[in-house]
């Protein structure tokens, strides 16, 4: 018996070795190192002085950090509900027998698989005030389009629109999978009972879709907290930080201002948020299953 166990240990080590070495070198070590650096005032070249939790305390006093936090939260609060409602609507529309289903699926998915940098560039051109397509389309509705990327208000709105446009298809596909997993019997029973329309939606579809919705909500929040590419390419965080977000600031602190300690501390703030969100999802999911 012990012999077999030893043998399996040998094979386990062999099979896990590549991935454990990789994780140790490029995840675990950097993680510990980052925790330590976040407690110092290191500036990449100079000395590394231990400063305790100063960086973390600073993060909640630094005016720029507060701007960046509030932009990130605003971005999340606005985009996540839209990224739940629109994809659910589209998934429900697509979840029936009709022509062109494959075409729709491919079309909605196209932005999702394309690079954010490339998409951002296209949108930057479309946001052009004088020659851009966005303002031209708005002009049909009699709206005089703003100067999107130089207005402190509209710059963040512009980033939000691109982000929603890009992730819509992904969430739609997840909702569609969730919808298709709902047994048809429920709807047939509802039909017999004369339960239709909105009541069907609120009494059957939404309750049975809860695990999917929960997952998409948490995923979308996590992704929104990490938004970066589109900010970097379209506005560069401007004008005057009005569209700058947390990861953008982390990038700047570390690789433009060389405040490595502070950059790591902000990174940890993000990591802790994400950890808490994921744990909440697990807890809620467990609760769900225990009820059933």
């Amino acid at each position, binding site marked *: 018996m012990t012999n077999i166990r030893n043998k399996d240990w040998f094979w386990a080590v062999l099979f896990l070795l590549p991935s454990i070495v990789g994780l140790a070198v490029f*995840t675990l070590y950097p993680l510990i190192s980052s925790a330590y650096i976040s407690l110092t005032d290191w500036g990449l070249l100079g000395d590394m002085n231990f400063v305790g939790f100063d960086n973390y305390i600073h993060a909640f006093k630094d005016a720029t950090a507060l701007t960046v936090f509030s932009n990130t939260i605003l971005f999340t609060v606005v985009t996540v509900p839209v990224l739940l409602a629109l994809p659910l609507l589209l998934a429900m529309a697509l979840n*029936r027998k009709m022509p062109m289903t494959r075409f729709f699926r491919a079309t909605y998915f196209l932005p999702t698989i394309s690079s954010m940098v490339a998409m951002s560039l296209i949108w930057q051109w479309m946001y052009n005030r004088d020659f851009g397509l966005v303002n031209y389309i708005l002009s049909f509705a009699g709206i005089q389009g703003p100067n999107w990327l130089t207005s402190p208000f509209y710059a963040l709105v512009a980033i939000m629109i691109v982000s929603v446009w890009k992730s819509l298809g992904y969430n739609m596909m997840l909702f569609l999978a969730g919808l298709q997993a709902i047994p048809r019997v429920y709807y047939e029973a509802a039909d017999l009972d004369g339960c239709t329309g909105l009541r069907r939606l609120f009494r059957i579809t939404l309750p049975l879709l809860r695990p999917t919705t929960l997952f998409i909500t948490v995923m979308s929040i996590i992704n929104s907290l990490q938004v970066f590419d589109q900010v970097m390419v379209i506005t560069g965080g401007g004008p005057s930080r009005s569209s700058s977000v947390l990861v953008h600031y982390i990038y700047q602190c570390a690789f433009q201002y060389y405040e490595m300690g502070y950059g790591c501390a902000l990174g940890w703030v993000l990591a802790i948020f994400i950890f808490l969100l994921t744990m909440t999802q697990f807890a809620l999911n467990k609760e769900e299953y225990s009820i059933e």
Partner: protein
Amino acid sequence: MTVNSNTLHRPFNKRRLKKNLGLTVSFIILVIGAIAMLIPFLWMLSTSLKDLSDTFVYPPKFFGKTIVWENYANVNERLNFLGMFGNTVFVTVMVLVGQIITSTMAGFAFSYLNFRGREHIFRLYLLAIMIPFHVLLVPTFVLLRDMRMLNSLWALILPCVVSPFGAFLMRQAYMSIPRALGEAAKIDGCSPWKIYTAIFLPLSVPTMTTLAIFTFVATWNDFLRPLIFLSSNKQMTLTLGIYAMQGNYSTDWGVLMATVTLSLLPVVIVFLSVQDLFVEGVAISGMKS
């Protein structure tokens, strides 16, 4: 609708009408959405075929006076497009192959092999999925600098060769392979390595393909790593190249859009050819997580 519905067949008609109405409304919603999804891509194509004088006109037109293919010819001259394309292909292929190997091996260990602490180690892998790359930015940069790998494509490859998510995905696939298959091979004298290569790998081709597609898209489109780890013009990848180009030629939208179009082609082609697998993969990742 408010007419007295005493006749027998009326409820039936009403229901059918309602169903058709639902279908029509759904179809209209989907068409409007699809147009919104496609317009940026069409605009990209349209601009990439325009002369500079046709670009800056109001009202914007989808077709310029002439169709200009030169923008595509200029792409390589302005940007060293082929070099960047090659770099991106190299990085993507290396990461892809590496991830498939490490993920299938780890997945095999976590599903077929019995060893003490298996579930604990697996739980650590799950925790690792959660860690955002941004918290590792600085130490990874320093580590690669000390390894003298900054500014080389290996800086984009080595840290990405192991994916805890990949290990998780493969383990889930292997859990559904009946143990009896492995046991039978074991009685025939097959070593675990042989069982892995001869039974588990061939049976998990669909999941491996799903992982490959995810990795391909993520690596091809990655921006933050190249931005931080690469700085010389020779080693740029496509996303970084496009970003750098935007600064240098911000007004020549024709050439910029031609570059963007070409950079998207590989991903779009792969996606369209394996669309079903891709969609399935998304659904699986959604349900299992």
